[in-house]
Every structure is written in C-alpha cells, then in structure tokens.
C-alpha cells in the first residue's frame, strides 16, 4: 500500500451566520462537521454527495481557500491548516485545483500563455524562455495545439477551456490535484473526454486526485475509492468496487438506486424493484438534527438514531460506515 499523501482529520468548517450588535455570531452553518480521510499517493479519491453537503468546502479547506475551524489538513505529514500565510504560500504549489466553471476560472483579459505562465512565474525558478517551452508542452499534454498560446479564453469552447485550466493546475507540478465538479459544467460528450484526460494524465505523471462531484457515474469511473458525504459528514467510505457492490449506509443505497440506467426497460424494472426514494428535504446545516444527521430522512431510522450519534465502524477492510444499523453484527 502506498504512503499516505494527504491526511484530513476531524475537519470542521463552521460559517458564522449573522453577527449581532456585539459582533457575536447568532449561530453557525456547520458546512463540514468532523470529516476524516486520507489519500494515498497516486490514487483518486472521489467525494460524492448532494449539493450543500459540504464536499466543495472540504476541497477549499484542503487547498487553503478557507480557514479550517477545527481539525487539521496535513500533506506529507506537514500540517498545512493554520500555517501562517507566508509559509503556506511556499507550499501552495503542492496542491492545485481545477474549478467547476471553465468560463469563470480563466481571466478573460489574459492570453492562454499568460494564464498558464503565471503559476510558474510565482512558484518555479525558470527563465522566460523555459516557461514558454513548458507552457507549450503543457498545452500539448492536455490535447491542445501550441499555437493557442496567444489566444484569449473567449475563443475556446467549454471543454477546451477546462483543458487550459487543467494545464494551469499542472504547471507547477502539484502533488495533489483537486477537481471540484470539474466536469459538471460540460456537455456529456465533452465530460467523458475531460475525464479520460484526467485519467491519462494520472497514468503519465503519477498524479493524485481528489475528485469532487455529485455525479456518481463519473466518480465511479475515475475513482479508486469513494467517500459519500451527507450534511457535512462522511457517511460511508470504501473502495469503488466494494461501495457499489455492498453499499451499507441507507443514504448510499438510495443514492445508488437513483443512478439512471441507459436501458429504459431495465431502468423501469430497477425503479419498481429497489428504488429508494428519500422523503423530505435536506435539513439546514445551520440547525442539523440531533443524533444521526440522516435520521430525519432515513427509511430505516430507529429511536436510537434520533438520540445517539453513530460512530464510524469498519465493516470490511477499508470500508467504513457511520450508521447504527451497519455496525458489527448489525448488518442490514
């Protein structure tokens, strides 16, 4: 088993809601509430969950765009969270991010050359000529032509822009690349191209990914392991195969049953047989339910779920679940 590259432990991110006259917040949005996981060098960890479950916030905390409320983020054993900005800046190149919207993540007024060059200029000790060559090499690597250097982002399609954004992220040789919904804004046909590009680059450069998405199929295709988040907590985490074969948490099961099948008749059948439809809405993260956070919508909830917070248990090697019903001997 490869070494752990990233270690996230007890990560919490609370946003103050509204400050009263004395500057004290009236409450907190518990966007992320105690998440632990680690990523090994060279693997892809997928993070899934519905909108507002805190998966993007986890990404932002790891990369340092948000300050961590509690817990720690460590890369290679060095704790990054809470590090003074001056020191942190030197380590920024280790983690890079590909953003969701390729139309917003590239500055419209800069050329492709300038866009890809900037991270190198800040972080690498290269001459202008060397950087230019590297920019060209990166463009080739992401499947674009070298001549695009002098063009502006608005001359490209969404998929091409996302390739440029990937080139920018790779420019500084990052250890970890966070893809925050990196393909959700693209057309389906382009999505597969970009995902394949991610895979290719991983093989070629030995990259490590944290792949954040709400699309289970995408995550299944690219990830080695998958973490499922619900309302700021990690409810289940396992190897991709294991998770799809033996989902334990009721939330994971309902998510998996919601994946549409390409064949209509199969789809109908699957719907009738084992579609689990959740009732109600996601509770507000500002006022999360007591006990298990999922109990308000869980079809299997018992009284215990409403009172007692479940602990994380390992149901199989590398497969952890946070649910009262799936602990040792529980087995649903």
């Amino acid at each position, binding site marked *: 088993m490869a070494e752990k590259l990233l270690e996230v432990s007890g990560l919490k991110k609370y946003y103050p809601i509204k400050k009263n006259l004395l500057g004290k917040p009236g409450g907190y949005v518990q966007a992320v509430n105690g998440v632990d996981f680690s990523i090994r060098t060279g693997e892809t960890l997928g993070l899934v969950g519905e909108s507002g479950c805190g998966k993007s916030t986890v990404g932002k905390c790891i*990369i*340092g*765009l948000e300050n961590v409320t509690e817990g720690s983020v460590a890369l290679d054993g060095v704790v990054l969270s809470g590090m003074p900005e001056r020191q942190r*800046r*030197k380590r*920024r*190149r280790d*983690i*890079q*991010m590909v*953003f*969701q*919207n390729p139309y*917003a*993540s*590239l*500055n*419209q*007024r*800069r050329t492709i050359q300038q866009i890809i060059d*900037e*991270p190198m200029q*800040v*972080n690498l000790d290269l001459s202008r000529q060397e950087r230019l060559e590297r920019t060209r090499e990166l463009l080739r690597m992401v499947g674009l032509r070298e001549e695009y250097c002098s063009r*502006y982002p*608005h001359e490209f399609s969404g998929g091409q822009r996302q390739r440029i*954004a990937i080139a*920018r992220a790779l420019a*500084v040789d990052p250890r970890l690349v966070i893809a925050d919904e990196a393909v959700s804004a693209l057309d389906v046909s382009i999505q597969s191209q970009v995902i394949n590009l991610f895979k290719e680059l991983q093989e070629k450069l030995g990259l490590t990914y944290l792949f954040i998405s709400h699309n289970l199929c995408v995550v299944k295709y690219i990830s080695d392991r998958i973490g499922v988040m619900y309302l700021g907590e990690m409810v289940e985490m396992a190897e991709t195969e294991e998770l799809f074969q033996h989902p334990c948490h009721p939330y994971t099961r309902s998510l998996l049953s919601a994946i549409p099948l390409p064949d209509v008749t199969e789809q109908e059948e699957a719907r009738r047989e084992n579609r689990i439809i959740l009732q109600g809405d996601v509770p507000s993260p500002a006022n999360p339910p007591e006990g298990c956070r999922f109990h308000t919508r869980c079809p299997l909830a018992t009284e215990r779920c409403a009172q007692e917070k479940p602990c994380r248990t390992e149901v199989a090697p590398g497969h952890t679940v946070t649910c009262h019903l799936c602990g040792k001997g529980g087995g649903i």
Partner: protein
Amino acid sequence: MQSKALKKIIRNPTAVICIVILAVLIVSCVFSDVLAPYGFDEQQLHNARQGPSAEHIFGTDEYGRDIFSRILYGGKTSIVIGFAAVLLSVAVGGTLGMLAGYYKKAEMIIMRLVDIQVAIPGILFAIVIVATLGDSLFNVVISVAIFSIPTMIRVVRSEVLSMKQSEFVLAARTYGLPSWRILLVHILPNIVHTMIVLATMRFASSVLTSATLSFLGLGVKPPMADWGSMISNGRMFIRTDWWVIVFPGLALLILTLAVNLLGDALRDALDPKVQ
C-alpha cells in the same frame, strides 16, 4: 477586446455625435485665445447688455463683455476642472475602493470614512477646503473631487467584492499569487470599464459642481470667466436680458449631455455581454 469596443463605439451614432460635439467644444475652448473675437475681460461699457447681433453673436453682459468669447475662455476652466477632478477621484476613489473591497481590515476604516463624508454635505467640505487652503485652481479641483470620491469608492468596492469570489481569482490564490498582483493583474482590468463609465458620469456632475462653487463665490474669481459664475451673474438679468444666462447655460447643458451619453455608449461598448 479593445478594438472590439472601439468598433462598437464607431457603429453607435449617438456616441459618434457626442465625440464630435466634445471635440469641437474642447478644441474651441483650448484655442480660445485665437478663436475668441474679444478678450474675456474686454469691457465696452457703452455696449453693455446688448442682445445677440452680428458683432456679438451671443450678446454682451452687464460690463459689455462679449459672451461668446467668455464662453470659450470659461469653457477652458470648466473643462479643466472637470477632467482634473474626475482623474483625482478615479485615482483616490479607485485605489481606496479596491483596498476596501479586497482587505477586510481596510474596509472597516475606509467605509466608515466614506460614511462620515456622506453624512456631511459636500458643499460644506468644499467651503472648508477653499476657505482654509485658498481658492487656487488646485484647491477647487480637490473640493470638486471630494463630491465624487465616496461614490467611486462604493462602486469600486462592490465590484471588487464580487470579483474576489470569481474562480479565476480563487485560482490565482491557490498558486500563491500575492494579493497586490491579484488586485492589479486580475481584478483591475475586469472592473476598469465600470470605473470609466462612472468617471464620465462624474465628469458632468463635476463641471456642475464647479459651477455651483463659482456660483457661491468659492470657485474661479472674476474677471476670469467660468460657466458657473457666468450663469450666476446672468440670473440677475433673466427677465430683461435672457442671453446673459441662456448661452452659458446651453454650453453647460450640451457638454454634460454629450459626456453623459458618451458614458452610456462606453458602458455598452465595454460590456462584453451587450452586442
């Protein structure tokens, strides 16, 4: 991008007309020494308050000075004050606005100062400045600029606040670009069109403000001509000799209208969303 904006301007007839009007106004005021048929302080008391005629196309004022010549001379002061005040407010307001938008701590201080400024009438500020520092052209420019600075700060700040959340700024932060470079390289070019548009609007109101100051006797001193003071003198004769007030008023109207309309056209031309 820039040439595209230029094309949009050229295709817009209103903008072209405004540019022509402005050019004519500016050129004729700059060359007032050559173009004006009479001096700005050339008095012909026997010709006082004569209506428009072949000799004095806009008539004469109460001292027999040629109003057309005085409009040309006065235009120079008015336009210089307008431009200088706008440049000053863009420089000061733009900088402070960007700081306030990007840095939380600076925001606290700058925005409270703006609140103070907004709470006190600008005229009062202008009176204090001119009264304590003297009524040189520069001080008049400062007091006129003070009217525009808070607006500039607020608008720029809100633009920066929204830009700060955009993904390309977040991306720049993830690779450790220093914040001053983020401000200058990524944010400024994307808000500059808002600043230009606001500046053109404030240009018109700055000329009006300088007229107000002259009207109150705080701006340009006689016998120097200035549109504001000409209008203020003319109001005494509005019932009997309309031309004394109407022509400088018209000049002011045309200038402000042209600049405002040009500002609108610029906003459309620089906005990539407007085709």
